[in-house]
């Protein structure tokens, strides 16, 4: 099957969406909705790390829409002139993820400062790490993690496998992990909300469709799908 699809043009028009990996499930659902509403149009997704997608776009990737997991990565694209006027379409909030049994007996953010606990945070370079620093700073806490993870999924994995007693991750991630981790909400998370921007790209081959897709994402039905996955309205 793989050879057959190679280079074969879609029968109708194809909309290409570059989206952060964390949007995979919700965007796939939105894509199906979009296709249903636009017969003959096929939506193809390129999910990956926002930063890698940004690299691809600045190197001339033929994309129509870019949905990033942080304003910073979107900025590298707009700075390069490949997109203008990004819009925030969802926000994401931190939660404390702990193993279901909660061996560290964690109930609030300040418990993470306990030096005996193995806490993992995201690296400061990635959005969830930046958010964690903001939240901890707001709470005036100093937490020494055992690891600064490359992305939020890596942090979550550590908790799922019981390697870490706690991690600061997004609500959406806690939600997608189901019953393998327990999420603990904490008030300071309001101080560290991460925004997801979306933009139509400057050289989009299907600019009109791209515009419609971003409208779908920001529309009420679109927001409903996203909020089911744990995102919050912008």
């Amino acid at each position, binding site marked *: *099957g*793989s*050879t057959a*699809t*190679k*280079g074969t043009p879609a029968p109708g028009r194809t909309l290409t969406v570059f989206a952060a*990996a*964390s949007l*995979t*499930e919700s965007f796939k659902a939105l894509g199906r909705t979009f296709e249903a509403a636009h017969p003959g149009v096929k939506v*193809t*997704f*390129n*999910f*990956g790390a926002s930063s*890698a997608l940004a*690299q*691809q776009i600045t*190197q*001339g*990737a*033929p994309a129509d829409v870019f949905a990033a997991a942080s304003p910073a990565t979107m900025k590298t694209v707009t700075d390069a002139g490949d997109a203008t006027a990004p819009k925030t379409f969802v926000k994401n909030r931190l939660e404390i993820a702990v193993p279901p049994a909660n061996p560290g007996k964690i109930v609030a953010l300040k418990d993470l400062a306990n030096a005996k606990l193995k806490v993992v945070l995201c690296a400061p370079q990635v959005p969830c790490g930046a958010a964690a620093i903001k939240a901890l700073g707001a709470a005036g806490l100093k937490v020494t993690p055992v690891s600064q993870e490359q992305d939020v*999924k890596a942090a979550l*994995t550590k908790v*799922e496998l019981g390697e870490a007693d706690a991690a600061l991750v997004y609500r959406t991630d806690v939600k*997608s*992990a189901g019953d*393998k981790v327990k999420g603990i909400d904490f008030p300071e998370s309001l101080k560290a909300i991460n925004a997801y921007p979306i933009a139509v790209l400057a050289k989009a081959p299907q600019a009109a469709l791209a515009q419609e897709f971003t409208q779908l994402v920001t529309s009420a039905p679109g927001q409903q799908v996203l909020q089911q996955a744990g995102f919050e309205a912008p």
Partner: protein
Amino acid sequence: MKTISASPRGRVPWVLLVPALLGLAFLVLPLAGLLIRTPWPTMGTRLAQPEVRDALGLSLFTATLATLVCMVCGVPLAWLLARVSFPGLRLVRALVTVPLVLPPVVGGVALLLVLGRRGLVGRWLDSAFGITLPFTTAGVVLAEAFVAMPFLVISVEGALRAADLRYEEAAATLGASRWTVFRRVTLPLVAPGIVAGGILCWARALGEFGATITFAGNFPGRTQTMPLAVYLALETDPQAAIVLSVVLLAVSVAVLAGLRDRWIS
């Protein structure tokens, strides 16, 4: 009548057996860990998903093609490094290891810089021939070949260096040109090394992730290979990721167990 073995080749010495078994356990136990965690009941339904089959097929196809590309270019390159002396040989030999050390994602970026639509060579390919490589299946093959070729080159070069040069001399006295010597004497003599290199190359290409996703993107059916599918599955459903990995493993182990002994003997 049963053959009595008259040449029992001594005991396998402990000092070799113990580290070998340790090494084997180290390589195989994590796999056991994975297998224990695999949600077997869902296996069937996963395998039935067309996306999984697409990804698996694409992986096998691109890895095999990438291995062919590597063979065609890499074996001659290894020969050049092992048999011809030219100025700068040492540097070239060290440069060949570059893609090995380069974090694959950076390798993907580097490929974009050269072969991307705005890249050094890619710009020209685009304007002259209308060829763009990124985000195509051909791009996947290139990304995999870039990452996997050094494995082939280095192990084949090692095999060439260990080969007895005098057979090549004998072939020359029989009127064989260097090409004939290469084809009819050198290649068969270092066949085990080439098989080993090919396996390394194929397996590395099959497992390649970073350079592929960066250079070729992650489009199902076109550039989404199994490792990419695993990566996305990890985002949404870690169990599914394990299942996909196990499928990839099972297929590759089966292919290797099936093919390799045929090549070797």
